[in-house]
């Protein structure tokens, strides 16, 4: 079997694992980000402090350190994760923390009058946030969130440090067997570039679709 005949199928398999990690981490990290932001802005003091602490912690650690702690340090205190799940969890915490800052800033940027109008219609605080504040905040936070998601797509390559056989780990492994660095890393690079570009184009389209007169984000 030639080099390409063994490398490409393995690369494909690694890519599928990369996609699986992202398919889990992206929606969950967005949900976490929104929850953290709401907790920080509207939560009672303990909730708000807890959310702020969470964000501060995971924004303050390099993703690689977070991953190593989850996979290697937590077992010492009896918490075990398989490599795949350790990576997904690290991605969710790290990206969720970053994204939540965009959502929080966007919530804060919504004019006080929106809240007054909602409450004067008889909406509860909960309804106000769900129906009036969040929809506007998420439109404003959208470019920031999509940027973080693109980072996440690329940083998913760090999962190799906890032994996930994702696309980058496969590339590294093949490089150590064949030393054909140019072909191997170029192939991986092209796939990452295509993923990031596809995401970028997709987000741009979605952003245009979500565009509402008067709510555009200044560029």
């Amino acid at each position, binding site marked *: 079997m030639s080099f390409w005949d063994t490398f490409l199928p393995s690369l494909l398999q690694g890519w599928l694992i990369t996609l699986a990690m992202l398919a889990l981490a992206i929606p969950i990290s967005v949900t976490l980000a929104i929850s953290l932001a709401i907790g920080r802005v509207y939560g009672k003091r303990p909730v708000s402090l807890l959310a702020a602490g969470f964000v501060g912690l995971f924004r303050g650690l390099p993703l690689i350190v977070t991953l190593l702690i989850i996979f290697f340090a937590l077992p010492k205190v009896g918490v075990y994760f398989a490599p795949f799940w350790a990576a997904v969890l690290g991605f969710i915490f790290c990206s969720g923390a970053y994204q939540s800052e965009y959502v929080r800033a966007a919530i804060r940027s919504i*004019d006080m*009058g*929106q809240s*007054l*109008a*909602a*409450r*004067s*219609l*008889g*909406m*509860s605080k909960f*309804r106000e946030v769900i*129906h*009036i504040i969040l*929809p*506007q905040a998420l*439109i404003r936070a959208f470019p920031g969130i999509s940027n973080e998601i693109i980072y996440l797509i690329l940083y998913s390559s760090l999962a190799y440090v906890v032994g996930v056989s994702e696309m980058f780990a496969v590339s590294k492994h093949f490089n150590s067997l064949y030393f054909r660095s140019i072909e191997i890393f170029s192939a991986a690079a092209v796939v990452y570039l295509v993923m990031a570009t596809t995401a970028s184009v997709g987000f741009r389209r979605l952003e245009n679709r979500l565009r*509402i*007169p*008067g*709510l555009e984000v200044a560029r």
Partner: protein
Amino acid sequence: MSEAEIVLKAENLRKRYGEHEVLRGISFEVGRGETKIMCGPSGSGKSTALRCLNLLTTPDEGRVWLEGTDVTAPSTDINKIRQKIGFVFQEFNLFNHLNALKNVSIGLEKVRKIGKDEARKIALEQLRRVGLEEHAEKYPAELSGGQKQRVAVARALAMSPVIVFYDEPTSALDPHLIGEVLEVMKELAREKMTSLVVTHEMGFAQSVGDEMMFMVDGRIVERGTPRELISHPQYEVTKSFFERIQELYGSER
């Protein structure tokens, strides 16, 4: 006026922010079908008074009744009360992410739990009432100030309120857009929509106001029919205030 006809009653409302006492004991009543005007220099507490009435701001002291229900009682569900009080803001405060129709129907759908189709029908009716049916699909940013404020009026009316509060509804508008909003408000007053209006529009006050209250430094210092108050003010502050308004606006409006 008999007890049954009183829609809104405020008794001894007080509010202070730190050292500054914004409301120093405000008491008044609004009867069914009445249009009450509240005016006075800026900082006199008019807006705070309005907001204390539906507890957007919590008063430190005093009580408010809406159709006999004690609004200020801790057991009262304030969200239920607010559904019955239309509130029109100086800055319109239309929901920026919703078109005109949705701005009017969202309260019906999400608060009153009326079905989507029925809510849409009511919202269209109310938009027609303020002359904006053909702008139903436009977003706030695509409407003029006068149109925005008319949508805000429709939004308030859609909830079938027992009273509408207007907080300087024309103060943020270009002069040439004020008329269309006042027309809508006058029409509603003629239809005997109970309302409490904070405004400096003396023409409006004189044509549809039943009573005018003049506020200074957190107190209602004078009250009477708008005509009486404007032509024969008792106090020097009131007099000089109306003179200044006359100078600024002219007398025709």
